[in-house]
């Protein structure tokens, strides 16, 4: 038991160290601002790296971008303004969640369309199967079935 506990302590320390490099100490006047800083830097993608958020990357451009996010937050800018500011410079690539616009309707809409299409398909299959089982009995068979049921009840 003690061994397992130590294992988790070491694991926690190790993950803490892995993230230590990319995080500066920032002073915020209120916790809401800090929360917004955290979520913005987690949702912006580092343009230099393949798949890292800017809060997780040591590359110089990520440092610059974090600095800019911080400065713009202090300046009272909205999240939308900050995202647009980054997209204007580095392209849509920096957004982990693409914006909803003309050319991304398909991207956002397709999953919903597929779910609805799947549900319709399942409903059609169930209905088809139900109809098929009703139709499977001929008149003669139905009479026999009723006779059998009656016989069963009679006993």
């Amino acid at each position, binding site marked *: 038991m003690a061994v397992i506990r130590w294992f988790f302590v070491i694991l926690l320390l190790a993950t803490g160290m892995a993230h230590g490099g990319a995080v500066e100490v920032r002073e915020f006047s209120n916790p809401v601002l800090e929360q917004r800083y955290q979520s913005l830097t987690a949702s912006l993608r580092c*343009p*230099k790296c393949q798949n890292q958020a800017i809060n997780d990357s040591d590359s110089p451009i990520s440092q*610059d971008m974090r600095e800019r996010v911080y400065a713009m937050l202090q300046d009272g800018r909205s999240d939308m303004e900050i995202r647009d500011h980054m997209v204007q*410079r580095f*392209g849509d*690539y920096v957004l982990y969640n693409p914006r909803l616009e003309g050319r991304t309707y398909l991207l956002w809409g397709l999953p919903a369309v597929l779910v609805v299409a799947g549900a319709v398909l399942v409903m059609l299959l169930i209905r088809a199967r139900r109809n098929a089982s009703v139709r499977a009995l001929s008149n003669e068979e139905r009479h026999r079935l009723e006779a059998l049921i009656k016989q069963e009840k009679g006993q």
Partner: protein
Amino acid sequence: MTRRLLLMLPLVGFLVLGAFLYQGLSLNPFQRESALMAREFPAFQLPTLEDPERIVDESLLEGEVTLVNVWGEWCPTCKQEMPQLLDLADRGVRLVGVDYKDTREKGGAFLAEFGNPFEVNIFDSEGVLGFDLGVYGAPETFLVDRDGIIRYHHTGYIKPEDVHDVILPEVRKWQ
């Protein structure tokens, strides 16, 4: 018959998706078009590397097709790229440098050692202009037309063959 075709639908879907994903494997994730394409060169006000007293702005790029090259002494690929840039300057292309995140001493020494193909160098020690240009490494090169609009963007190293195959045709196109 229609029923059989209907049964093929998932397979068709799978093949389309497969083809789509397969061609994604051979794409170079660093070959992304600049977000500034067909937009005005960002406004700036910075001193030159040559003369700290001289402040230049975006009007520097108007009136002539210009190749803006972002470089820095700290960037090894920029050194390899210099012969190509000198070649372009020899062929009459106007080049303006952006000395990005550098010190005056190092930037000056770099040009003294590897040659200076630039008409003038914008000294961007803090990387402010670089940020507005969406630069995330060096070297990067932007072609700006005579109205100050960005027309072409080259990410990374300009190879010797790129001079004739890519850069010069682009310059001619906008001249």
